[in-house]
């Protein structure tokens, strides 16, 4: 690997956003050869159904278009051009400028492929050199994305590199070089993996770890028991193949009688089996004193509750790991329950069916996406 990769510091942020956005628009077209290659990879190597892979790419690149990237920069930085030069802050009247780290090392997990692409795009937005290590178990399609970028914008592509995969059980010592050169390390994986990686990072290097997470679905009221909601709930579950941090593992549904829940459960199971081909084991019971996460693939427990308080109580043991909740409830309770859930640590609450299409502005793990990757300089003229 070349030691000195040229940064894009002098390139205006607007130009980077336009270029990356245009590439995303290409990927959104069904006949894009890189997209086709990625779908094939996801089906053959990662075990996704074709429909899942396609839906996943739409969800990913639909959020990486130029307007959405620009909106993200505005949401997190106020004025995106602080990445280009000193800009006067409208509130304080002071001049400020932001710079990303010279080098970012990204270490990805095997479960879902999308974060690798998003992470690199964010890294390019802050004008850093991005080094990425994908999982040995599942490479995802970052290489295909970078290949498409090198055709589309060779200068930008030249700031990205894939790192070697290392050997099984060999730890992260082989990444010593890149890790010591990096101003920031972004890592995805189990809590154990993250602490293992941390051991290899020099003190003082910024670290962003995305670890274990649990998501669930909560459906309150008769309007949430319809087959339309059931189909959306199924989409939430199958779209990332139950592997993502936003994949609901357990559904909670309000109901008093079995006859109220059965049609929902049936429609849910049918939708799963139709869209995510194959048999699924859906169970339901009203024992909220014992909520266990499924141990196997293609298993979804539905917990039937009478009082929403029982759901909050059942979620308490998982609070530390809670990520997203797909929530269906009548207004005005919906707002109230959203408040309660956020107080428990849930960092994304959305409607059924939207779980796998998080907006790029979502505070992943409750944090800004790129604002905290930056170092600021303030100039009092």
């Amino acid at each position: 690997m070349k030691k000195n990769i040229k940064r894009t510091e002098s390139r205006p942020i607007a130009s980077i956003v336009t270029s990356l956005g245009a590439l995303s628009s290409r990927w959104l077209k069904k006949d894009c050869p890189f997209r086709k290659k990625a779908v094939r990879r996801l089906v053959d190597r990662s075990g996704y159904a074709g429909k899942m892979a396609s839906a996943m790419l739409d969800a990913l690149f639909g959020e990486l278009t130029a307007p959405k990237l620009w909106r993200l920069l505005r949401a997190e930085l106020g004025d995106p051009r602080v990445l280009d030069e000193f800009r006067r802050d409208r509130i304080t009247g002071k001049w400020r400028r932001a710079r990303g780290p010279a080098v970012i090392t990204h270490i990805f997990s095997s479960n879902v492929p999308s974060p690798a692409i998003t992470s690199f795009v964010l890294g390019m937005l802050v004008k850093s050199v991005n080094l990425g290590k994908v999982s040995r178990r599942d490479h995802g399609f970052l290489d295909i994305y970078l290949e498409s970028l090198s055709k589309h914008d060779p200068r930008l592509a030249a700031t990205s590199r894939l790192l070697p995969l290392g050997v099984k059980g060999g730890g992260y010592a082989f990444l010593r070089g890149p890790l010591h050169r990096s101003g920031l390390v972004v890592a995805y994986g189990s809590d154990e993996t993250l602490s293992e990686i941390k051991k290899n990072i020099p003190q003082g290097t910024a670290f962003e770890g995305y670890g274990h997470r649990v998501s669930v679905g909560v459906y309150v009221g008769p309007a949430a028991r319809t087959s339309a909601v059931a189909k959306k709930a199924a989409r939430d579950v199958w779209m990332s193949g139950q592997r993502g941090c936003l994949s609901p593992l357990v559904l909670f549904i309000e109901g008093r009688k079995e006859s109220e829940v059965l049609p929902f459960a049936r429609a849910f199971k049918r939708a799963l089996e139709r869209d995510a081909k194959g048999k699924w084991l859906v169970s339901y019971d009203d024992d909220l004193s014992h909520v266990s996460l499924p141990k196997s693939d293609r298993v979804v427990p539905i917990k039937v509750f009478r009082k929403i308080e029982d759901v909050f109580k059942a979620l308490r043991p998982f609070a530390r790991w809670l990520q997203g909740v797909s929530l269906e409830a009548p207004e005005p309770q919906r707002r109230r329950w959203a408040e309660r859930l956020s107080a428990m640590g849930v960092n994304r609450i959305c409607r059924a069916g939207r779980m796998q299409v998080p907006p790029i502005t979502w505070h992943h793990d409750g944090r800004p996406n790129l604002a905290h990757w930056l170092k600021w300089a303030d100039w009092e003229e």
Partner: protein
Amino acid sequence: MQDSQTRLLDKKILEFIHRHADRPSTEVDFQALAYAVFEYQFERNSHYRKFCLLEGKSPGRLKSWKDIPAMPAAGFKELVLATFPLRNAVRTFRTSGTTGQNKGAHLFDTLKLYEAAILPSFKKYLLPDGVNLSFYFLISPPAESRHSSLSHMMGVVSRHFAGGKGRYYAEKEKILLGALLRDLRRERKKVFLLATAFSLKAFLDFLKAKKIGLRLPGGSRLMETGGFKGRMKEVSKTALYAECKERLGLAPECCVSEYGMTELSSQFYDTTLADAAAGIKRKPFKTGPAWTRTLVVDPVTGRETKNGARGVLRHFDLANRGSVLAVQTEDFGRRSGEGFELLGRARGAELRGCSLSYEEFLAKTG
């Protein structure tokens, strides 16, 4: 204490087992009892009843026994699948898993049916010639592994066919290789080795390392089992049997592979030895007793595959009265002869991802 309905049903199942110990069952007879067991389980096994309702199936609405909804084997990990209250459980067999939390459980309120189901097919497929044998178990003894259905089964076999004199050569996950070699060398009688593929391979490797080739007396035989899932990487059966010939002098015709699941009460065997004893020349296949049926189904549609096409195995076992009689495995196979051929045992698909798994959760909150 069992209620009268359960006692009556068990009596019927036992009669069926005894009546068909040595001969096949008709579709009509099998279906009649299968329906009775299904109705009973639908009524008493609440998770199974819900599963059936979600499949849109209930008693009185089936066209044949093939329509009885098959519970995925994963269900034994996720749900309590019993037709009786937990306090009535006399024994729990656990499936092997990578960690304690990942194990499935098969609960029994009586072992009567389970034990009755073991003997006829064991006799038919492993002792068809009634030869006097010395039993060598390379499997841990039942007293040591109370949760292993395989160990329990071996205990029953030893009691019934070896007068309780079978010897065990596995102890706390360790195989007593030296003792086994010593005893086999001294053995005068014909030998019956009963082993998991894992323990057998360990013994064969031991012999190889010592450059020893035993010649077991003619009529000696081997029962090998996949080890009830997951313990080791798939050992090629052909390679294993070739080594048995080289190191033990056991021809492949004397080796029978048993296929069992903790989730079932009955077992399946290769027809190799039984065919040889009856002078039948054909390609051996796997088959089970008359109170079982096996379908090969398409893993996506759940429908029976056609013309011997590959699919996943779905077993129906009438002796499984206390849990569910129909179990959907993730084992690949295809129709062969009057039974089936096992093409590979899919590892239990476990949830992977950045989502926290149950075991990890337990480990953290423990």
